[in-house]
């Protein structure tokens, strides 16, 4: 148990920031991202004994986080909240206007992408190698490269469009 706790702490310290960004990119909401982060690490804790180094630990955790984000639905309140992702992201843009307008704008643009695109692009932005993203998302590498190219274009266009507004 003590070993498990030490392992968990190390895993959390090494991966939580990126997983939080993934969750925030998916939901556009800090509180929801925190909930998803906790849910992801709850599953990590529950499955830690099953992890047999068959994949990199970060890939394994990303997979759990992606699945947690995809099945993100706990209550009606959350469902309603989820549909307001864009509105939340816009509110975030106001909150961050002085501090980090560009980050907020980037999240706002990510919120306009489709769910799977949000997840893939956050991994690209975090510089995960393509084979790892392919493994996490369950898409073939060839298909993924095409997808990433399209998402990058879409996101850049969205960003430039909103920046001009």
């Amino acid at each position, binding site marked *: 148990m003590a070993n498990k*706790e030490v392992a*968990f*702490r190390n895993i*959390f*310290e090494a991966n*939580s*920031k990126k997983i*939080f*960004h993934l969750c*925030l990119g998916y939901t556009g909401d*800090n509180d929801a991202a*925190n909930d998803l*982060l*906790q849910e992801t*690490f*709850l*599953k990590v*804790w*529950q*499955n830690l004994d*099953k*992890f047999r180094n068959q994949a990199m630990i970060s890939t*394994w955790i990303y*997979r*759990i986080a*992606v*699945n*947690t984000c*995809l*099945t993100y*639905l706990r209550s*009606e309140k959350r*469902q309603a909240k989820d549909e307001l992702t864009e509105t939340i992201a816009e509110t975030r843009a106001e909150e961050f206007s002085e*501090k*980090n307008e*560009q*980050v907020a704008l*980037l999240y706002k643009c990510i919120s306009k992408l*489709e*769910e*799977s*695109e949000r997840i893939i692009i956050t991994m690209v*932005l*975090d*510089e995960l190698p393509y084979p790892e993203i392919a*493994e*996490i*998302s*369950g*898409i073939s590498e060839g298909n993924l490269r095409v997808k990433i190219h399209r998402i*990058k274009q879409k*996101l*850049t266009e969205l*960003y*430039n469009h909103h*920046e001009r507004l």
Partner: protein
Amino acid sequence: MKDFDHLMSVWQEQPVHDKLSVDNVLKQVKKDVNSLANKLWWNIIAIVVVLSMSLLLMIFAVFTWVAYVGILIMMVSMLFYFTMIIRHYRILSKHDATLSPTDYLVSLHEYQKARSKTVGWFYYLYVLMIGIGLLFYMYEIFDAFPLYGKILVYGITAVWLLFCTFYLKRRIFMNEQEKLNVMIDRLERLKSQFE
């Protein structure tokens, strides 16, 4: 006009969120794991207590075969219910969150469909069996009651079972069904996005 590299630099320079504390997460994780286990244990304990009481009643109380048949029918239906809870729990815990999302979504989709079907027909069978068991049991227990007493007891029991089946059950499962439907729609949409 910004390019994607600019977006990368914006992303990587974003501030770290304050709420990220390993102690808080660890505390929450342990709390959630305990609450999940507790919930399951309470379900198991409740059903084991009721089954044990029924068994003691069968062993120590003196009835004719009618009441024994009634208790046995109720015990069998409770055993079915018990195995269903355990099966659902096992199916749910079998869902490996570490699978690729497409496999994960397919397995979740199948589970949701199976569960909505089982909850539907199983509940009616369960209530029917409990009703028949109670009828046999009460036939003997309330044998000495006057007619109006029998009507009252049978009436109240029937109303309670009907209330549970057509009002309470509907309310409880409607909420779950809504969530299941939303989830299924969502999974289908996501599946198409990954294709």
